[in-house]
C-alpha cells in the first residue's frame, strides 16, 4: 500500500495534560499516550513499554523522555527508542498542536 493521507483528529487541548504528564487516548484496541513536556511540546507513543508492556503514560516525564513505572526503562518521547543500555522501541504516532488544540493523526491507527 502507498502512503495514506493524514487524518488529523482533535483529541483534546494542551491544558488537559499536566506539564511533565501524560493522558491516554483510547483508539479501539490500542491506547495512545499523549505526553506534554515542561516546554509544552507534545508527543504520542503507544502506551506500552517495549520491555514488558508497562503503561508509559503512568511514568515520570523528564527531559524528552519518560521512565516506565514498572521497571524504570527510559524511553525517548521523540523516537520511542529505549535509552541507555536497554534496547527496544515503542511505536510513535504523529501529533501536532494547532493553537492549544492537540491533533493526532488517526490514519496510522486503524
Amino acid at each position, binding site marked *: 500500500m502507498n502512503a495514506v493521507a493524514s487524518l488529523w483528529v482533535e483529541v483534546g487541548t494542551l491544558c488537559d495534560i499536566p506539564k511533565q*504528564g501524560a493522558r*491516554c*487516548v483510547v483508539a479501539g484496541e490500542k491506547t495512545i499516550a499523549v505526553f506534554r513536556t515542561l516546554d509544552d511540546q507534545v508527543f504520542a507513543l503507544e502506551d506500552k513499554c517495549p520491555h514488558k508492556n508497562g503503561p508509559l503514560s*503512568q511514568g515520570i516525564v*523528564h527531559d524528552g523522555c519518560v521512565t516506565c*513505572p514498572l521497571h524504570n526503562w527510559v524511553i525517548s518521547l521523540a523516537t520511542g527508542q529505549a535509552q541507555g543500555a536497554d534496547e527496544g522501541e515503542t511505536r510513535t504516532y504523529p501529533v501536532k498542536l494547532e493553537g492549544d488544540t492537540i491533533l493526532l493523526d488517526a490514519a496510522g491507527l486503524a
Partner: protein
Amino acid sequence: MSTKQKLVIIGNGMAPGRMLEDLFDTAPDAFEVTIFNAEPRVNYNRLMLSPVLSGEKSYADIITHDDDWYAQHGVTLYKSARVDQIDRDAKTVTASNGVTAAYDKLVIATGSNPIMIPLPGHDLEGVITYRDLDDVEIMLDAAKAKKHAVVIGGGLLGLEAAAGLRMQGMDVTVIHLANTLMERQLDESAGHLLEEAFKARGVTVKTGANTSAILGTDGKVSGVALEDGTHLEADIVCMAVGIRPSVAVAKQAGLAVNRGILVGDDMRTDDPDIFALGECVEHNGQCYGLVAPLYEMASVLADNLMGGHAAYGGSVTATKLKVTGVDLYSAGDFAKDDDREEIVLRDAVGGIYKRLVLQDNKIIGAVLYGETSDGPWFFDLLKKQTDISEMRDTLIFGQAFQGAEPLDPMAAVAALPDDAEICGCNGICKSKITDAIASKGLTTLDDVRAHTKASSSCGTCTGLVEQLMVLSLGDAYNPNAVTPMCGCTDLGHSDVRRLIKAKELKTIPAVQQALEWKTGTGCAKCRPALNYYLVCDWPDEYADDYQSRFINERVHANIQKDGTYSVVPRMWGGMTSSNELRTIADVVDKYEIPAVKVTGGQRIDMLGIKKEDLLDVWADLGKAGFVSGQAYAKGLRTVKTCVGTNWCRFGTQDSTGLGIRLEKFMWGSWTPAKLKMAVSGCPRNCAEATCKDIGIICVDSGFEIHFAGAAGLDIKGTEVLGHVATEDEALEHVVALAQMYREQGHYLERIYKWAKRIGLDKIREQILDDAEKRKHYFDRFVFSQKFAQIDPWDERVSGKDKHEFKPMATLALEAAE
C-alpha cells in the same frame, strides 16, 4: 552461495549458550548455526531454578537468551526437537520433529539426566525429578493443592528442592541415605549444622534412611515406605539422587563413550568434526555437574571451533547452596588423613563453622558454614596451590585479617584469572567485566550492571565488582566516594539535603538552578527525591509536585504488572468490624474485583482494579469511613498490633490501643522510604515488632522501643532505643525518632540503613538522652502533620486530579480500508 560453515548443536542448555556467546563475540559471521532443543523453550539459567521454585524469581527473570537473541544472531532454533540420530557418513542429524540438518561441525551438549532409582512405584504419577523448568512447574502446581512432599536425596539439588517446596507451604521430609546431609561436599560438623538449619525452617530430615518403596493408590503416589518400616504420607515425591550424563545419541552414533562422552583437551570426540561439552562429557575420567567447568569448556570449545588451540585442563570446583538464609561454601578435598592438618573455627552462638584442610602448607579443602564471604579467596588459594605458611596463624579469619601488601584484597582480585567467575547468578567472569569497562568506557557500578548484568541479581558479588572497577579505573573510581544522587548532579543526597535547608531552596527548579543540575528538568531518580526533601523540609510552603511522584503516589493505589491497581484501606491497628467487612465485600462484588488478599500488615488488599474504577471504589469505601491505607507510599504504612490486655492472658499493656493511637497520630506522613511499625503486648511478640522499622514491646514496667529492623531483602532484628514508662512517653519518642529519620534519611533509604549510616549512639543521644532535642523533633512532626493528614482518596473523589483517572479522548475508529 554462502561460504559459512554449518554448525549444528544438539541441546540448548547453559554450556552451548555460553559457547555461542563466546563464538559470536569473536566471530559473529563464521557459522550458520542450527540448534535442536528437546525442551520447548529458549535458553534459561538453570542455576536459578531453585529461586523460581521458592517463588523468589519467575521464569521470565531467568531467561538468558530470548527469541530475539536467536533472531539477531541468525540462529535457527528448533524447540521440542530431540535429536535421535546422527549420520556421521552423510554428516547429518535427524530430530524427532522430522527435520534433518547437515553439519560441517557438530556440537553435542545433551547435558545429563536425573537418576531415577527403579524402586517399586517409581513410575507412579506424582514421582518426579528436579532438573528442568517442567519439573519446577509440576512441583509448584502440586504445592497449590497438596500437602505432603517427600524428597529422596539430601544432596545439593534435593535440599534446594526441599527448601523451595517448604517455602511453597508444603510439609517436606528429606530422606537421605548417608548419615549427614551433602556428605560429598561437607564434613560431618557442617552437615549437622545444615540439618539443624533445615529443621529450623520446618523441614523434616531423616538421615541414614533408605527408601524401600514408593506407595500409590489408583496410579498416583500416596506415600513412601522406608526400610526400617516407617511409612510417610506423600502427595508428591521428588527424586534427587544424582545425575548421569546423557549419552544415548552419542552411543547410537558410535562415538567413544564411557560414563560420559569422551573428549580430549580440545573438547573433540573421537570424530574430528564432532565436539561435545557440558555435563554429558567425560574429560580425564571426570564428569562435571556444576556451572564453572561448563563455562571453562565453553570458551575452550569456542576457540577450537575458530581454529584456535585452547586446551581444557579440568576444573576444581566449589559448591554453594542456593537456599535463602543458609550460607554454605565448600571446595576441594577434606577427608582426614595422616599427612593432613586442619584449622577449625567454631562459633556456636553465631552458627559459624569454618574448616580448612592443609597439606604441605597448602589449602586442599575448605568448608564454610554461616559466613562464606571468604569462600572465593580460600578457593583461589586452593586452586593456585599458594603456600600459606606465612599467614597460617590468621588464615582462618579470612582475607580481611591478612595485613601486608601481597594479601590485600585488591591484590587478590587482581590475581584472579580472567576466567574466574565473579557473578554466579549470571555466570559473568572477570574478563567480561574488565573488558566491558575498557571497551565501553563504563565508570559507575550502575553502568557495569546494565552492560554486563554482573551484580544485578542477588548482589552478593557487588564488592568484587567494585574492586574490579578500582583495578580497571584506578583513582577515577572510588567506591567510598559520595555517590551522586543520579546522573544529573555530582552531589550526594546528604549534600543536597543540607543545601536545601542552608540556601532555603523551596522548589524543584530552584534546587536544580542553585545546585547546578546538569540536565534541564532532572530525571526519574532525582525528581521524586527532591520532591520528598522539599515536602519534608517546607511542609507549609512547598506545593507537592505530583508529576515528580512515582505513579503509585500520584494515583494513591499500587500499580500491578498488568497496569491495573490494588487498593488497601486503613484498618487502624489491624482492627476491623462487620460493617467494614460488609462494605469491602460489596465493593468487591460491585466492581468485579478479581482478587482479595489479607496483607502482612493486618489489612485487606483488593487487587486488579481498573484505573477508571478507582474513584468509584474509593467513594464507596469512603462512605463506610475508610481512608487510604497509603500502602503505596514512601510514608507511614501500617501499625501492626496484637490484642494486648484487651483479650490476651499474657498482655501487659493495651498494645492495640497504643497501635491505633500511633497510627492515627502518624498517618499521612511522608518518609524517605516506607515505614512499618508494630506494637506487641508482651515479649512473646505476636505482632513481630522486632523486625519492623519501629516497634514497641510492652512490658509490665512500661514500653521498650525498638527500631531499625528489616524483614525484606535483608533480614535484621531491631536495635533497642530504650525503655520508657508511660504510653505518652512512648508516643513522643517514636514520633521524634520518625521525624529525625524524615529529616536525615536519603530518599529510598530504609530506617535501618539510615541508622547504620549515622550510628545508633547518635540517635540514642538525640532521642533518648536529650529531652529538648526530642521535643523539637516532635513539634516539627506535629506541625508537618497539619498539612499531611488529608485523606487523598476523599480529595480525589471530590474532584482533585480528575485527569489522572480518565482517558483524554476515545476515538471511534472506522475501518479505513
